[in-house]
């Protein structure tokens, strides 16, 4: 790892000022992706601004059918929140299967979505549940937030402060994990909401996306059989040593059917 200047931040405004002042400064949330990236010298920032000391970014609030998760809330806190489990059990379950216990003790929702790894779980959670990302500047609908591989709608230095999830009528997340890393080879979140059915897919393509044909099929008949014979198109899906594009396309259908079944 190349050396850098380490800076703490006392508030979101302080962090924003410090990241703007640095020549090539980066923000650090839980560090579960950033530190391995620095160790591999895939990035060489001048400054690392640690958000870890900003207590106001941590915490979970549930009220009126809305779950608000502070950006620096660790996965373990979401997974083990009885309030989240009551309001959106699929969200608690999703958080409880990210990485391993030590990653869940340090990794945060804000860090995960700002990084937007194409195989991360939270992007499917946000898009599937129709969440809203709150930053220090504005609010961004999840549908508009994830823009490409490791790319988001965040401007330079913009800081995620919380994520707001509306409770769905029913939702479930099903993941086919890489057996080593626990990243999703394919993960599908299906939600039945007041605004319609949402099917969000992570791991399969370069960025989380919605399977609109499956959403339409489920709109009329919310049961696993509505998806019989349906798979994703393998065009432009990821291919690596773990799974071919065709295999991932098949898994999208399987995981979507399982998620619908788990919605009960």
């Amino acid at each position: 790892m190349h050396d850098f200047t380490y800076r703490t931040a006392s508030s979101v405004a302080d962090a924003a000022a410090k990241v703007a002042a640095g020549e090539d400064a980066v923000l650090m949330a839980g560090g579960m992706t950033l530190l391995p990236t620095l160790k591999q010298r895939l990035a060489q920032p001048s400054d690392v601004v640690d958000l870890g000391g900003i207590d106001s970014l941590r915490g979970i609030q549930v009220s009126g059918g809305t779950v608000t998760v502070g950006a620096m809330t660790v996965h373990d806190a979401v997974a083990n929140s009885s309030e989240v489990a009551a309001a959106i059990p699929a969200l608690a379950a999703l958080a409880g299967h990210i990485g391993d216990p030590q990653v869940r003790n340090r990794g945060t929702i804000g860090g995960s979505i700002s990084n937007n790894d194409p195989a991360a779980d939270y992007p499917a959670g946000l898009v599937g549940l129709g969440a809203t990302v709150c930053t220090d500047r504005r609010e961004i609908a999840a549908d508009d937030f994830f823009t490409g591989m490791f790319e988001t709608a965040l401007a330079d230095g913009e800081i995620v402060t919380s994520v707001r999830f509306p409770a769905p009528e029913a939702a479930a997340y099903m993941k086919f994990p890489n057996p080593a890393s626990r990243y999703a080879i394919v993960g599908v979140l299906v939600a039945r909401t007041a605004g319609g059915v949402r099917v969000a897919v992570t791991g399969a393509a370069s960025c989380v996306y919605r399977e609109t044909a499956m959403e339409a099929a489920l709109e009329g008949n919310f049961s696993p059989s509505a998806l019989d014979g349906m798979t994703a198109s393998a065009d432009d899906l990821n291919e690596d040593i773990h799974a071919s594009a065709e295999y991932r396309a098949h898994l999208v259908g399987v995981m979507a059917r399982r998620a619908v079944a788990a919605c009960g």
Partner: protein
Amino acid sequence: MPTVKMNVNGEAVSGEVEARTLLVQFLREQLRLTGTHVGCDTSQCGACVVHVNGVSAKSCTMLAVQCEGADVTTIEGVADGDTLHPMQEAFRDNHGLQCGFCTPGMIMSALDLAGRNSAPSETEVREWLEGNICRCTGYHNIVKSIMAGARAMAAGQGG
């Protein structure tokens, strides 16, 4: 160079580190607490697990400077003098190790689980060990050790 202060195994320590110094490097190379191991150095294997403010963390994927003011516990801090911690004793009783390289991380991870769940099932232990890799034992005796250790802790034999 930044100076970092923390409590390690109940003792106030400080040292000059680079910003990039990992917690595990600080523990092993400056404090000479070499019970915490570096296995993969990529946050996969869990040989480097310690507790930071009471929860388990991979010390190869934390900066020393992130632990300013924190309470850190390593494998050296769990026994009571010459008396092994019940979880350590359970690993000995159940032959929960062969080469022993992964054992410090296994025990620190197990202690986090036992603190949350005093009677974990075999399935719960196996799921919890997602982040700890052992290349010798096939995990069977490690799982038995952790189940026995958690029960011993709950029975008030220390902890």
